[in-house]
């Protein structure tokens, strides 16, 4: 029997070696000749991790859902490739010069294109936008999530969301078929950016009312974007087709987009290698072996990952300790080892590519073990003596585990501080994190829109909704209040810059670790991808520009 078991082990081993060999062989890039000639079949196949929670623009909150929603609907405004605002359903971007924004900055008037139609050919008018924007504050619909809060400066919206007002009192009004008026309670310099985002996309009242929650199913859903929902096989795939009635100037070349739901990233990679997918993200452990691959596509994402301190728990109440921790961690080594090169060492909180990015912020605290030890001694903990027990609390993901282990090692070697790692089931972690029940953790932020307003007040304002670090500084609060209503963009960015300088350089409220770089594989026959820092899969703001070459 023992001999048999040995035999079996041998067979198993040889099988595994065979398989590994196969895997290695498969890594070599296939040479596929492509031409500039468009392919007969204009179909793009993309992986999405799973069943969307919803395709309802007023409810959606997850990046992979929003990716699909962006293809099905078009708002008043849209982004250009530099994340500037361009008109979409609106004829022009409102400004004070063209009379679209009132002198006091409180009334916005949108003049709509007169050729707007839904995907079923019915005309789309200003009242459709009125209905949809009000729906965003409906306590039964949109006021269920995080994003309606972006638009809460619209007159009457807050009361309606709280169940105290009514839809009629929300100051979004269709003056006539092609004129929409929005009134604000206070000036909001970023309103136009926000109106280009998915929560402000129009939905069809009769469709929503007829089908209820099932209105987003294929066959029911009617949109106004470049693509329509052709098929939704739950938990397997979603197929979009070009919208024959699309009114925009960016008519798509692609005839079909297929979103294959593949939960596992490694399986998606296998599907890509088997030509079942045209693009997929490279799983972190595989990053190294696709380095320099001609099919690899890297783009910087507007995202920062940082060490999260609970500013109200010992020893992180002391900025000197927070700074010492920052200086004891080698971001470059982190990017090279854990991220396998897909990232950039970070100093400032606001990443490059964002308006308001300042490369000087945080550079006073580079990786410097001696300096770190000095700061720790200055804080009253020479060589870490007297420090309370420190635990880093993380959710159970591979990336978080690797990162926590890296930090544990760095802090031990460079600062002489031992920290414990506490790994929690993801939902439990989320619960603890939201309640600020942690001492030390990992935090990250990905831009919803490219403005410091999205990066600072909600996260670092005293008692702000997403300030789980419990950071508080009255000077920063004051700067936020000024910036929120500053209409001069230069001054506004300057106010946020001052705030960021205090948060990082003076207080080190959170310690930036790296800026995220997305690493994808894209088949050579996919042409015309335009990436931006807001993409969840490359080019998803501009699939209308993508074409498939003959291959």
């Amino acid at each position, binding site marked *: 029997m023992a001999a048999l078991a040995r035999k*079996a082990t041998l067979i*198993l081993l040889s099988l595994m070696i065979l398989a590994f060999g196969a895997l290695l062989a498969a890594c070599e890039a296939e040479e596929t000749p492509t031409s500039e000639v468009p392919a007969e079949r204009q179909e793009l196949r993309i992986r999405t991790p799973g069943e969307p929670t919803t395709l309802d623009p007023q409810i959606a909150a997850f990046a992979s859902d929003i990716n699909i929603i962006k293809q099905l609907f078009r708002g008043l405004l849209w982004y250009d490739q530099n994340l500037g605002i361009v008109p979409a359903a609106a004829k022009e971007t409102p400004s004070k010069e063209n009379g679209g924004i009132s002198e006091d900055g409180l009334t916005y008037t949108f003049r709509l294109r007169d050729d707007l139609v839904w995907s079923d050919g019915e005309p789309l008018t200003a009242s459709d936008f009125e209905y949809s924007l009000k729906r965003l504050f409906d306590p039964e619909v949109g006021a269920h*999530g995080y994003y309606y809060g972006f638009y809460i400066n619209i007159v009457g919206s807050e009361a309606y969301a709280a*169940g105290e007002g009514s839809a009629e009192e929300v100051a979004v009004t269709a003056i006539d078929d092609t004129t929409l008026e929005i009134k604000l309670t206070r000036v909001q310099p970023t309103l136009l950016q926000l109106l280009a985002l998915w929560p402000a996309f129009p939905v069809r009242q009769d469709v929503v009312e007829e089908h209820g929650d099932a209105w987003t199913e294929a066959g029911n859903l009617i949109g106004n974007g470049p693509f329509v929902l052709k098929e939704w096989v739950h938990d397997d795939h979603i197929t979009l087709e070009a919208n024959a009635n699309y009114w925009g100037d960016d008519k798509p070349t692609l005839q079909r987009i297929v979103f294959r739901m593949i939960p596992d990233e490694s399986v998606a990679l296998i599907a890509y290698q088997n030509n079942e997918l045209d693009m997929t993200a490279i799983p972190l452990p595989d990053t190294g072996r696709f380095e320099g691959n001609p099919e690899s596509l890297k783009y910087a994402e507007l995202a920062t990952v940082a060490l999260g301190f609970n500013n109200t728990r010992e020893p992180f109440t002391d900025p000197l300790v927070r700074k010492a921790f920052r200086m004891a961690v080698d971001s470059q080594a982190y990017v090279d080892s854990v991220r396998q090169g897909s990232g950039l060492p970070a100093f400032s909180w606001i990443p490059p590519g964002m308006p308001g990015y300042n490369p000087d912020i945080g550079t006073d605290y580079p990786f410097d073990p001696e300096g770190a030890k000095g700061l720790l001694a200055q804080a009253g903990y020479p060589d870490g003596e007297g420090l309370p027990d420190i635990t880093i609390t993380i959710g159970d993901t591979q990336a978080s585990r690797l990162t926590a282990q890296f930090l544990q090692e760095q802090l031990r070697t460079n600062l002489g501080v031992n920290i414990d790692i506490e790994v929690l089931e993801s939902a439990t972690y989320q619960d603890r994190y*939201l309640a600020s029940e942690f001492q030390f953790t990992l935090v990250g932020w990905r831009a919803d829109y490219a403005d410091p307003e999205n990066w600072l007040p909600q996260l670092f304002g005293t008692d702000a909704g997403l300030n789980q670090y419990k950071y508080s500084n009255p000077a920063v609060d004051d700067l936020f209040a000024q910036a929120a209503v500053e209409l001069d963009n230069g001054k506004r960015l300057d106010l946020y810059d001052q705030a960021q300088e205090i948060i990082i350089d003076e207080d080190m409220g959170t310690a930036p670790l790296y800026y995220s770089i997305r690493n994808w594989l894209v088949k050579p026959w996919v042409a015309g991808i335009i990436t931006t820092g807001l993409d969840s899969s490359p080019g998803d703001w501009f699939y209308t520009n993508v074409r498939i070459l003959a291959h």
Partner: protein
Amino acid sequence: MIVYATRRLLGMIPVLFFIAVVTFALMHAVPGGPWDREKRLPPQALANVEAKYGLDKPVFAPSWRVWEQEFWRELPDTQFVNYITDAIRGDLGVSYRQLNRPVADILLEGIRISATLGLMALVVSTVVGMAFGILSALRQNSWLDYACVAFATLGASVPNFVLGLLLMVLFTVHLHWLPSSGWTNPTTFFFLSIPSNWKQLVMPLIALSAFPTAYIMRVVRASLLEVLHQDYVRTARAKGLAEHVVVMRHMLRNAFIPVLTVLGPVAAFLVTGSFIIEYLFAIPGIGRQFVYSISARDYGVIMGATLFYAVVVAAANLIVDLTYVVVDPRIRY
């Protein structure tokens, strides 16, 4: 026997109720709720959403004062009572993770797909496992026996996700014979799905069947070896019965009892879907829904799936108990 079956079926009701109570209590007791997102909801939004789905009500019992006043007039307005009364009417609620689909639809679709795969795996593993189990017992210590035992050891010891990935590397990456994953046509059931889905079926079926096949094979082999030298087998041979009659009628019938015992749990295991296989091969089955629902605190799906599992396990055990009567003359109900 009908009385016995009825009694067992009725006995399932308190068991299911007990499971419902425990599951409901546990899922509300664990930290985290369905609306814990990366970005914390504003308090107003949380209040709205909880009001919409009735999560603002007490979980089990209202306060004593309310209980005292109203209990005898009507059922208390609590989450559990509402869930049970709706469930009895056939309404399993809505999913918080798939907002456009009622829980009943999600479960039914998942069950159909998992059952399709599971029933096929059950057929494959029973047929293959029994066949090779019998062969290797009858030819004990031959090369065939060794090969079967080696296979059984492999099948039992290689985790199915490893086997699944190995198959994928071989058939998809290397040979390009089979698609990596997916379940493109989910509307068909059991063998009807073979024509449209066979390419997507092959690898998950092998990965899913490997363990039960090995298991059944070992049980068949072991129990056959045990009866091989029994007196009644010798008697049967001495009577001059043909070898196949000895094997089929005298040996197998007795050797089948332990096999039957394991078939119940194996069937339940296969039909309820394997999370790993469904996750790996992107198959939209109930096993995956179950695990996802737990991490998303999707209460409706957790409850529905748990109760479904309980029913399947209880039913499988009942069926096995009833089949004993057929194979074992000593058992009478």
